[in-house]
Each structure stands twice: as C-alpha cells, then as structure tokens.
C-alpha cells in the first residue's frame, strides 16, 4: 500500500473499501459463487476495529445477511457498473482538464475525506445497514476513475511520501488489477515496460501462483482437509472454487501506514492509538468477534462462501474478487481485551511488514515503541518501522505509470519502447566478412601469374630476345663508368626497400659489376633503416666474386637517420655526419674508415668521383637530386641513378634537363637488361627476362579480358537498371 497521493485522490476511499465497492458491483459474481470480497481487506482480516474493520466486521458478518447480499447484488449489476465506469471515464477528460485545480485541492480534500471516514465509522457502529448503503453509493464514485485520476496528482505536493509511492496501491481492486495486468501482459511480454515493483510482483506472482493455486485447490477439495483445518478452510467449498486463486501479496505495512497517514494528515493523533490497537488484534490465535460470527454464519449459510480471502482467477477485464489464500494459516487461540485473537493466515504472515510483529512481546502484549522524532510522523509512537527501502523522504525517482493502458496505448508504448531500447542499445557491429568471390579470383590470377613466371625457371631456357634498343640515358651511364679512373671513390646509396630488391638488384647488378671491373672503390651508405642489411645481402649474393668485395675492405657507412635533413647534413659534411665507422685493416685492427683508403681522400662530397643512387622511390631519388646534386654540380661530379621502372617518368626529366641533374640513368629490369647488352656481360637481368616477359604477357591478357568482361557486365547492369 502506498500513501502516495496517487492512491488517494479526491474522494477516494481506502483501498479495501474501494475494493469492496467494486467487488460488490462485480457482475460476474453470481449469488452462489460470489465471494464477499469485502472481507479481503487486510484490516478486516486483522480485525481492525478502527475506521472500518469493526464496522466492516459486522458488515461482513452482515454480508451473510440477505439484505446486504441483495443490496450488493442488486446495486452493482453489470450494466450499472459499465455505466458508471463509462461515466467516470467520460469524466476523465474533464478531470484531466481540471487536473491542476484538483492537485491543489487534493490535500485538503484528502483530509476532509479522512474526517468523513471517521464519521462513517461512527455511523457504521450505529447502523451497519445504512452505512453499507452509503458505501454502496460512495464506492461508485470512489472507483476506478478515481484511481486513474490519482495518477495525475502532482507528486511534489507529497514529496515526503514519494519514497513510499513505489509500493503497490492499497486498494487495487481485482478488476483494476486484472484489467491492468491483462493489458500489461502483452506489453510486458514484448517490451520491458518499467512497471512499479509492486505490480511486477503481483503480476509475476499471479502467473506463478495460478498453477499452484489450482493444485492447492484440488488438495483442499480433496482429502487433505486436516491441513486446511484453519478457519478459512472450513469455509472452503472446493467444488465452488474451481478457479485458481492466486495470492496477491499485500503490504500490510503500507496499509497501516496509510491509516496512520490519515490520522496524521487529519491532525488527530488520537486516532493513531486506534490504529495501533490493530497490532494487538494481530496476536495469533485470536479470532475477532465479528470474524467468529461470520464463521458461524458462513457455515450455516450456503450462499456465503468461504471468507473472501480467496480470489478467483478471472479473465482480463472481468471484475475479480479479492485476495485469497489457499493455504490455511495456523490459528492460535486466545482472547484479549474482549476480542478473540484472529488466526493470521499464512499469506498474511508472509506479507506482513517486517518488524511489525516484532512489536509483540513474548507475552503477547504489544510493545510500545518510542515515538518518532523526525518526519511527518514525529511524535507518534509505535509507528510501523520505516525501512529505507519503503520510506524515503525524497522525491519519487521512479516515474508513475498510469496503469490503465488501452490497446492503442499499448501499441504506442510498444513503439516508443522499441525506439528507446533501440537507442540505448549499442548496435553490434557486423563483422565485415571477406568477399569470397574476390578472394577466389585473386587466387586464380595469382596462380596464372606465378605459373607464367616460373616456367622459364624450370625449363632453364632463355627464349626471349634481350632488348636491342639502347636508351641514351643508359648509354650515358655506361660512358660515365668507363670514364672513371681506377681506384676512384664511388659513393653508392642503397635507397630501396627489401620488397623491391628483386627489381633493383636486377637493374643495378650490371652497373655495380661494371664499376668493380673498372677498379672503382665503392663506399656504401643508406638513409633507409633496412639499407645496411640490403647492402650486405647484395654484396654477398651478387658481387662476392669481386676481390674488393670478397676481402671485405670496403667501407660501409651504414644507415644515417634523419631522412632529407641527414642527407643535407651529409652533403655538407660527410665525415661529421657519420664520424665513427670502423673497418678491420690488413693487420686485424679496427680503424676509422675516414683514416684509410678511399675515404681518407674525402673531405667533402664533391671529392667522390661519382655518386650512384639505387632507389625504388622517386621521392628519395628526388631528395638526392635536390639536396646533394647542387654540391656535386659545383665540381661536375656525376650523379647517376638506377631506379625502379615506376620512378622513371619522374626522374627521367632530371636527365633530360640542361644542364643534366642526373648524368646517367638506368630504370627497371629492362634498363638493367639493356645495360647488360651494352656492357656485354650477362647478369641477372638477362636471366629474369623470360620470366618477366611471361608474367607481363599474362598480366596483359588478364587485364584485357577482365576489362572487357567487366565493361560488358557493367553495361548490361546499367541497361537492366534503365529498363
């Protein structure tokens, strides 16, 4: 039960009274099987004398009275119920418009209503029948619409109550409950509508308890009457309670808190004592008089069913009776203050608020607790323990849910929930798969290419004619090498990547071979980190037949880091850029390369007889041209290059310039083959030539036919799109 204002709108009755009215008006309840759901009020079960229980106890005893039954049956037939519900719903529009005004007046109305309830209590004690009549009238108004309207009340008016508002409402009638649970069934199954905990609990409990209730009913109806020997089970008529009776957990603490709240709001703390007397009546084994009388009446009256603590499972939208417990609770006996102790049903024990019964001492007397010192209940003693989870004096953090959800609203909720959940969820990124057809096609192309390249390797034949035409830049390179005097220091820069070592080695092998034949003393350097390794690899595999290389007396300056800046630095002052490089001399001692031949002659870069750059990258080649060549041109030192075929269009203009910035140029495998033709020394370019030609030929075919196929395919697709 919640004390939230939502559950106490203007003119709203306490829950159990509200339930009373609805149950009374339940058209589905015929005279034979209709349980008197009015008794379902927890306070009744507890024999609560104040406010209603005494009266209702009598009333419910009187519920066996034909007058009461007739009244209840006659007053709330189906048509009537529909009419008033419809009228109420019609009023909802008006109420919604008047919402603001109502919110302001709710508190005062609420207090007034509490006062009315007190009056009703007194009236009930005097004349139960007239009170019943009045209830019947009032409950028409204090019905579903009020409950629905209650949700519109501004929570901020009752901030201090908001912490409690999460709990279930005190007087949710079976009809409302069934309606709302039924409506929410579909929504809840598909979406995670955020429902109040109490509703989720009820809903889930209902579902799970249905089967259990059925089985228990069967057992009750069967032979195990001994176990159901409590007072409730005596009334049980298994044949008439075919339907499952789900148990709904009521929060007694909240119910009582509601009662207390009324008193507090009414400013009548004296009523609290009456409320607190409830707990005395809660002592086990004490049946209240009114309950005892009801028990006797029930046994005698066939029309009166078992106490209305049972509820029949009803279809959605049908008015249901109140909570039922299929399990008998153990009754203790005893009387106190003239009121017989009621046996507390197990379901009630199960739902009792923790700590409440702890207030009952071992002697069965109620233990008076200390008065509250804070909060709205300050000064009141023996109030129900406020648990952190139940009572939070703060704004309600959980939004209220209007439980009346129409089909259309369900659809809207569903759509909205989908949208929200879709936004909240992090979409799982689809793992991008590898396109298999492309991969297969690549394998086919690779197979064709590699087969074409490998055939000359396996058959060992050199059928392809070497290029006969010699390009002038290649001839210029050959001329420069031939013009070098013996023992000329030549700087060779290895500026290519390991991946292109095949092409670059084939293109440059003939040139380096030619230089070594001419007796040039080569000095190696690189601005690439992999350069030194490539130098070693190159010399070991291609030039080891030369004594100069085989003796390992050549200086290898290695890698100079810093890219173009280092290159510029080296061009400016070679020795300062690479100051400490050591070489083992003929006596086995490590000596600085700058102190021995040929580098002891080198003070500046122009002192080299020739610079040869072997590069696969036009940018690196350009760096040498732009940074080093200006120094070389001062003394007409030739800058020559062996470059990859891809760099030829970019570097050739530096040869075709006037004056030439690049004095000689060999590009690609074909350039190497041409140089071999000129120098009349067969080298690896000639050996690669057949495989190279075959590979290019297959490539041409693949590109040609692939291009034609794809063009036709693309054209057909476009044509289909146009159609």
């Amino acid at each position, binding site marked *: 039960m919640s004390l939230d204002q939502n559950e106490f709108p203007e003119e709203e009755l306490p829950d159990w009274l509200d339930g009373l009215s609805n149950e009374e008006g339940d058209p589905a309840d015929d005279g034979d099987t209709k349980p008197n759901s009015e008794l379902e009020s927890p306070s009744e079960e507890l024999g609560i004398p104040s406010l209603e229980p005494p009266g209702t106890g009598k009333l419910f005893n009187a519920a066996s009275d034909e007058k009461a039954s007739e009244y209840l049956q006659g007053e709330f037939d189906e048509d009537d119920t529909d009419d008033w519900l419809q009228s109420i719903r019609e009023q909802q529009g008006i109420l919604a418009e008047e919402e603001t005004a109502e919110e302001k007046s709710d508190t005062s109305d609420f207090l007034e209503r509490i006062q009315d309830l007190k009056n009703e209590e007194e009236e009930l004690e005097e004349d139960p029948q007239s009170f019943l009549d009045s209830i019947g009238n009032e409950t028409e108004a204090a019905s579903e619409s009020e409950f629905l309207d209650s949700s519109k009340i501004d929570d901020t008016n009752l901030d201090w109550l908001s912490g409690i508002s999460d709990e279930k409402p005190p007087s949710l009638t079976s009809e409302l409950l069934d309606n709302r649970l039924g409506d929410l069934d579909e929504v809840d199954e598909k979406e995670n509508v955020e429902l109040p905990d109490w509703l989720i609990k009820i809903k889930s409990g209902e579902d799970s308890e249905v089967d259990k209730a059925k089985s228990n009913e069967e057992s009750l109806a069967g032979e195990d009457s001994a176990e159901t020997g409590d007072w409730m089970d005596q009334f049980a008529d298994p044949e008439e309670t075919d339907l499952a009776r789900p148990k709904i957990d009521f929060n007694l603490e909240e119910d009582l808190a509601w009662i207390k709240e009324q008193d507090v709001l009414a400013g009548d703390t004296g009523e609290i004592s009456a409320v607190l007397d409830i707990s005395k009546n809660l002592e086990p084994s004490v049946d209240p008089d009114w309950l005892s009388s009801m028990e006797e009446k029930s046994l005698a009256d066939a029309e009166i069913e078992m106490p209305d603590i049972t509820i029949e499972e009803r279809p959605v939208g049908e008015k249901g009776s109140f909570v039922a417990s299929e399990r008998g609770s153990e009754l203790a006996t005893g009387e106190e203050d003239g009121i017989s102790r009621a046996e507390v049903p197990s379901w009630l024990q199960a739902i009792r608020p923790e700590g409440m019964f702890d207030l009952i001492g071992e002697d069965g007397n109620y233990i008076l607790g200390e008065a509250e010192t804070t909060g709205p209940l300050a000064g009141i003693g023996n109030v129900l323990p406020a648990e952190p989870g139940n009572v939070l004096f703060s704004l309600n953090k959980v939004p209220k849910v209007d439980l009346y959800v129409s089909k259309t609203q369900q659809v809207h909720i569903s759509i909205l929930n989908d949208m929200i959940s879709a936004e909240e969820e992090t979409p799982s990124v689809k793992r991008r798969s590898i396109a298999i057809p492309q991969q297969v096609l690549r394998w086919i*192309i690779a197979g064709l290419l590699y087969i074409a390249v490998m055939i000359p390797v396996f058959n060992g034949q050199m059928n392809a004619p070497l290029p006969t035409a010699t390009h002038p830049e290649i001839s210029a390179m050959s001329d420069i090498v031939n013009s070098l005097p013996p023992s000329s220091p030549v700087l060779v820069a290895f500026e290519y990547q390991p991946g292109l070592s095949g092409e670059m080695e084939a293109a440059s092998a003939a040139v380096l071979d030619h230089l070594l034949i001419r007796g040039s003393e080569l000095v190696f350097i690189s601005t690439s980190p992999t350069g030194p390794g490539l130098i070693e690899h190159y010399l070991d595999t291609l030039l080891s037949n030369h004594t100069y290389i085989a003796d390992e007396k050549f200086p290898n300056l290695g890698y100079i880091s810093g890219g173009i800046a280092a290159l510029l630095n080296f061009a400016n002052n070679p020795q300062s850029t690479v100051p400490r490089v050591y070489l083992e001399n003929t006596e086995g001692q490590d000596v600085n390369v700058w102190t021995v031949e040929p580098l002891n002659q080198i003070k500046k870069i122009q002192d080299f007889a020739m610079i040869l750059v072997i590069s696969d990258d036009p940018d690196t080649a350009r760096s040498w041209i732009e940074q080093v060549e200006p120094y070389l041109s001062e003394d007409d030192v030739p800058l020559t290059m062996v470059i990859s075929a891809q760099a030829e*269009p*970019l570097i050739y203009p530096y040869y075709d310039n006037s004056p030439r910035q690049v004095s000689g140029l060999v590009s690609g495998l074909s350039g190497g083959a041409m140089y071999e033709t000129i120098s009349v020394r067969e080298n690896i370019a000639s050996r690669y030539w057949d495989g190279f030609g075959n590979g290019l030929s297959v490539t041409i075919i693949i590109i040609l036919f692939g*291009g034609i196929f794809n063009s036709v395919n693309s054209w057909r697709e476009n044509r289909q799109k146009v159609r």
Partner: protein
Amino acid sequence: MKIKSPLSTAVAIGSGLIVLLTYLINVDEINAVRETLLGWVVIASAAALLVGLINLITVHVNKIRQGKKPLYSFVLVISAVVTFSLTLVLGPGHFIPQGIFQYVQIPVETSLMAVLAVTLTYASARLLSRRPNLFSVIFILTLLLTLLGTAPFFNIEIPFISSILQPFLSKVLAGAGARGLLIGVGLGTVATGIRILIGADRPFSR
C-alpha cells in the same frame, strides 16, 4: 614536463625559419646553427624510431592481454625482441642478424611485392566495372601499351610499341603528367610548410 604550447610553438617556428633562412641566405653563422639543428633532428629521428618500435611492441602486448589474435602478436613480439637483442649485442654485421634479414625479412617483403602484383592486376581488371568512365578506359589502354612495350609479349617483341610508343608514353606523356602533378604536390607542400611556419596549422597541438 609538458612545455606550454606558446613556447613550443615559438621554438618550432624559430627552428623552421632558421633552416629555411639557410636556403635563402648563405651565411656561415646561420649555416652553423642549421647544422646543429639538423644534428639534433637526426638524433631525434633515431630516438623516434626506437619509440615507434616500443609502441609497436606495446600494441601487440596489449593485444595479447586482450586475447585479440594473441598468437600472431606473440610471434611478432618475440621476433622483434629477439632480433633487436641479437642485433644490439652482435652488431648488424654479424651473420645472425644478417641471416634474419636475408632469410626472413627480404623474402617476406618480396612476397608482399608479389601479392601486390596480383592485387594490381586484379584491380586493373576490375577498374572498368568499378568506375566505368572515359578516364578509366584511357588508364587501361595506357597501361596495356606500356606493358606491351616493356617486355616481349610471349617472347615476341612488338617493334613499334617497344621502341617508340612505350618510351613516348612513359617519358613524355607520363613524365609530363607526373610533372604537372608534382607541381601541384609541390605547391601543396609549400603551402603546408608555410601554414606550419606561421603557426596557423598545428594539428598536433591544442
């Protein structure tokens, strides 16, 4: 220590201007400063290479921790550490580091080059499907003619193409186009350099 942005920007601009000034004005004093700066750059570049290597290893160590293809990362880390350690201890000229380079790195990178050849062939064959326009047609035709002129077509040399057309394409047309592109690239490079020098473009600072 984190250098304040204005100070670091001033240092960067000042260093750049000094190096640029040496291209414009040939003064020995300024050249000496430039050489000092370039020496620092060389050292910093080498240090950055080492930092990059550490980053590479760190990334793969994290991958191992996270279980993202840990086997590959484990092999990479072990290979990197072993190679680095051996080269550091034995020197780059030792036969073991040389062997690692010659028998592991060169074959691997050469294989990648072979894959690249296949990839380019495949991409060229599909170009007309992906981008069917006039430029693609010209691209493919130029490519085919250049290939035909580079080597004999199944041991048959096509005289006109290899002796006249292919050199014309690669040295004149391609050279002219490349020059035009290079001018554009050069302008872009200069513009980028100027933006950095005037402090208008420093994407790596706040």
